[in-house]
């Protein structure tokens, strides 16, 4: 009963946030620029949370997340622009194909550990990017023109679905199995957990949502180009997760929001933008090396269950 209550509290909060922002948009307090920033924030949270599942929960240091973003972006663009099918279907297709890509990449690479895994995933992400670069059907280096369909409402719905699925997954025996792998892989194995299976599952779920983020991303600008999905994009997502605190879902959300706002407003200072952005990162890491939230969650501050060690957000 308690868990169901938590779920409705979460939904109520979600609806209130939505209503307030929607109100601000319709009354034009938020202009197009702000609305755009909001959509970017939603996309970045989806990316951060999906990578959080792989790095923060399962402990697999994958730094090729932009590859799955690219798959989602191109697949959704093909579905809407070439096949002329509706946008929600395109988003779903983006997620599914990105998940399949995650499966194909994950099965061989997740046998590797630590830095080897990082390099392998980075390599795969580059391969994916270069594949798109060389397919004329999707425009090659010039990119692909996409109509602007992403709006605040659909981004918010996708964000909510992502959060609910990942929180629910984390707070179950399956999520615990993933955390066990992060904590001690040998012991997890000895406790009867199929470690390869759970690593791949976490990776596939992460890729699925990265694909959906890709779909939103592609339809948020008028053009997508392979150059936007390079390893710098992967590092951007990685920074959200690390800065928020490895293992903390609310940390990933928080840092995605903060860093998106920071980098959006720094666009006015084009010359110094990257310097200021980097300085902020360095300062946070100096003063909070464990990340903004450490391994805690926002809900820890409101509940008495502070010692409940399993991370990943509130129990829905």
């Amino acid at each position, binding site marked *: 009963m308690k868990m169901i209550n938590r779920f409705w509290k979460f939904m109520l909060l979600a609806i209130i946030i939505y209503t307030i922002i929607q109100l601000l948009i319709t009354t034009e307090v938020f202009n197009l620029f702000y609305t755009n920033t909001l959509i970017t924030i939603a996309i970045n949270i989806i990316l951060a949370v999906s990578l959080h599942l792989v790095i923060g929960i399962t402990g697999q240091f994958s730094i090729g997340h932009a590859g799955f973003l690219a798959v989602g972006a191109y697949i959704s663009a093909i579905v809407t622009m070439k096949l002329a099918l509706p946008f929600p279907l395109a988003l779903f297709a983006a997620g599914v194909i990105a998940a399949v890509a995650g499966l194909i990449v994950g099965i061989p690479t997740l046998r590797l550990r630590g830095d080897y895994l990082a390099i392998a995933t980075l390599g795969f992400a580059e391969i994916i990017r270069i594949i798109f670069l060389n397919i004329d059907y999707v425009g090659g280096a010039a990119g692909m023109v996409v109509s602007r369909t992403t709006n605040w409402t659909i981004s918010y719905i996708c964000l909510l679905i992502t959060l609910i699925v990942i929180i629910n997954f984390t707070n179950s025996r399956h999520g615990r199995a993933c955390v066990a792998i992060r904590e001690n892989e040998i012991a997890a194995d000895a406790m009867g957990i199929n470690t390869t299976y759970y690593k791949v599952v976490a990776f596939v779920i992460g890729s699925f949502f990265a694909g959906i983020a890709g779909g939103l991303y592609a339809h948020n600008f008028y053009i997508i180009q392979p150059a936007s999905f390079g390893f710098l994009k992967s590092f951007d997502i990685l920074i959200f997760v690390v800065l928020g605190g490895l293992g903390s879902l609310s940390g990933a959300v928080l840092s995605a929001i903060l860093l998106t706002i920071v980098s959006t407003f720094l666009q006015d200072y084009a010359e110094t933008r990257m310097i200021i952005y980097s300085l902020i990162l360095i300062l946070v890491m100096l003063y909070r090396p464990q990340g903004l939230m450490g391994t805690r969650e926002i809900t820890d501050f409101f509940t008495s269950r502070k010692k*409940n060690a399993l991370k990943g957000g509130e129990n829905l």
Partner: protein
Amino acid sequence: MSTNPLLHIQNVGIRFGGLRAVANFTLKLNQGELIGLIGPNGAGKTTVFNLLTGVYAPTEGEIFFNGERINGLPPYKVTRKGISRTFQNIRLFNELSVLDNVKIAYHSLAKHSIFSSIFRFPKHFSGEKEMEEKSIEFLKIFHLDHVKEEKAKNLPYGQQRRLEIARALAAGPKLLLLDEPAAGMNPQETKELMELISFIRNEFNLTILLIEHDMKLVMGVCEKISVLDHGQLIAHGTPEEIRKHPKVIEAYLGEEVGEEHA
């Protein structure tokens, strides 16, 4: 005595390159037995455990558990067949609560699927509830229920050892492998551990194979002892026989040069 031993290790050996860590190792464990495995440092005791649990695949010989051949199976499958272990250097899930540590071991006995968890179907709730109740039961047996919300890494050493055994038992084993459970314990803790081992053995109807350096513990609780030296089984028998066995004395104290020449 049953004709079918629970665990039958036949002439098992493993080579790491040129090094023969274990060679021609044979051991039979009958249901309900408690056998100690001793030997000097580097004799290959932990390697035997790693062979049994699938961490290494033996290069020679065969291992039968419950009549099934298990060599070459990955560790998680071996655990699901009913062999569970603790580690020489404690391997708990440090950042997780004591309760979650036990819940993870109970993982493969629960049945709810990933989909039912993501969509929060009733099966998820009933499955998780069962896991929670069973895990708390285990913690009560091991007198750890009062620290169940504590992070595993914050427990005192003795309790960490106990938690590791509790966790191994939660995986539902028929055979329990204990790798130096008394390492680093004071005499009082060792005494409690001996009582605990006898207790869980009766309570869970377990067969136990135990590696230990503490001779008092080994001689005290084990019915039979196998002695390993340089990867070879050099003696097997009751504690009394082992105590007097010349090869064992030689392995532990070194051979007496004078006697050799005499």
